[in-house]
């Protein structure tokens, strides 16, 4: 009977000890993870990587992926090996992820800005219209693209779209045959300025 009790107590002691060791190890790893994420977020200069992505495009994104960041040595002093291993691994992954995200975001912003500015310049030409009606009837437009409608390089004043008329009849009103703005429902609606 006594032997059994001793055996049970010993078993409990072993289980408890290994449980405590596990807890200790996971505590260290948790702390290392938290510290590494915090330090990585602080160390990565997001605006810089945003700019790299915006300027470099895919090259910038690739660069952000391959670029290495190193932690400060003082963060590892007095720390156990489990901490060092976890910290370095999490720091590496987190900095890489943050840089990549910022660079991709920069690229997307640059792309959107590029298309937006392109559209603005198309609007400035005065005959931007996605309406097939317009694109087909704007006789004065040199562009044949349906997407851009009448985004003619000739400028809007001589694109041949007259306002107020039904459709875009070339060479009618509007002075010298130009798009005299506020086309309304004419099909050659002037949506720019």
């Amino acid at each position: 009977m006594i032997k059994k009790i001793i055996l049970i107590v010993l078993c409990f002691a072993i289980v408890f000890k290994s449980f405590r060791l596990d807890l200790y190890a996971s505590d260290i790893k948790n702390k290392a993870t938290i510290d590494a994420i915090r330090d990585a977020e602080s160390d990565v200069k997001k605006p810089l990587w945003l700019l790299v992505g915006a300027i470099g495009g895919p090259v910038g994104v690739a660069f952000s992926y391959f670029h290495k960041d190193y932690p400060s040595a003082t963060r590892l002093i007095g720390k156990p090996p489990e901490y060092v291993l976890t910290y370095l691994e999490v720091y590496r992954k987190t900095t890489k992820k943050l840089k990549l995200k910022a660079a991709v975001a920069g690229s997307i912003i640059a792309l959107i800005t590029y298309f937006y500015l392109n559209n603005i310049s198309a609007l400035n030409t005065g005959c931007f219209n996605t309406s097939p009606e317009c694109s087909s009837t704007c006789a004065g437009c040199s562009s044949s693209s349906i997407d851009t409608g009448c985004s003619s390089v000739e400028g809007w004043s001589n694109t041949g779209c007259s306002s107020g008329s039904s459709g875009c009849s070339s060479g009618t009103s509007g002075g010298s045959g130009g798009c005299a703005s506020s086309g309304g429902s004419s099909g050659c609606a002037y949506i720019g300025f």
Partner: protein
Amino acid sequence: MKVVFINFFLLFLISSLYSEKFSIFANFERVVVRANNKESILGSLWYWGSDEYFVDIFFPLKQKIKYNSKNFYLYYPDNNIAFKFSLNSIKDLIYFNPFSAQEIEKLVEKLGYKKNEKKSQNNYSEYKKKSSSYILVILKDEKGRITSLKIKDKKNFVFAHVVYEEYYEVDNRSFPTRLSGVFYDDIRKDYYSEKIEYKDIKINEKVPDEIANFSLPQNVLIKEFDFK
């Protein structure tokens, strides 16, 4: 930039400033406080020659740190494991070099910062760099010893403030034995304070052979860390 001049990556530069043989031994205590969490580290430091360090940590665990011109090792004798880093992968070992304080101005200039003569006077100096938005402010005492270093932005927000105190004088050299600083991250959300104190200082003692020629035991598991 949060990594400031008490723990800056100046080892390369320091080597050119102390070319003659000189050694220092000191015990130290380092305390880091972040969000009510206080960490203390006790250890001893050997610094000799121009670029060799040996740091022996004995609290909260046994850890030996060896630095030479090529590598940096973290060695755990109790675990029989070591981490090896190449020279350019570790930024700021200078933390343990108490001489860095006296050389900060030279080092700042080597890093590309230029003194703003208009704003500098007597013991107050301001340094700026074209490619950086930071302004460095160095204060000195009447003996010309650095007492404070601040790193701030153009809106006068101080990201780091390091105070140098309790100077130790030897052989026409002096170095602070107490360094303390407060460091903010770039987004000003988080900060921590750090203090290091050197005690039992010995100058020009012979560096023990086991430290000067320290090498890792043969059966040690060495993990080379590479950030690929």
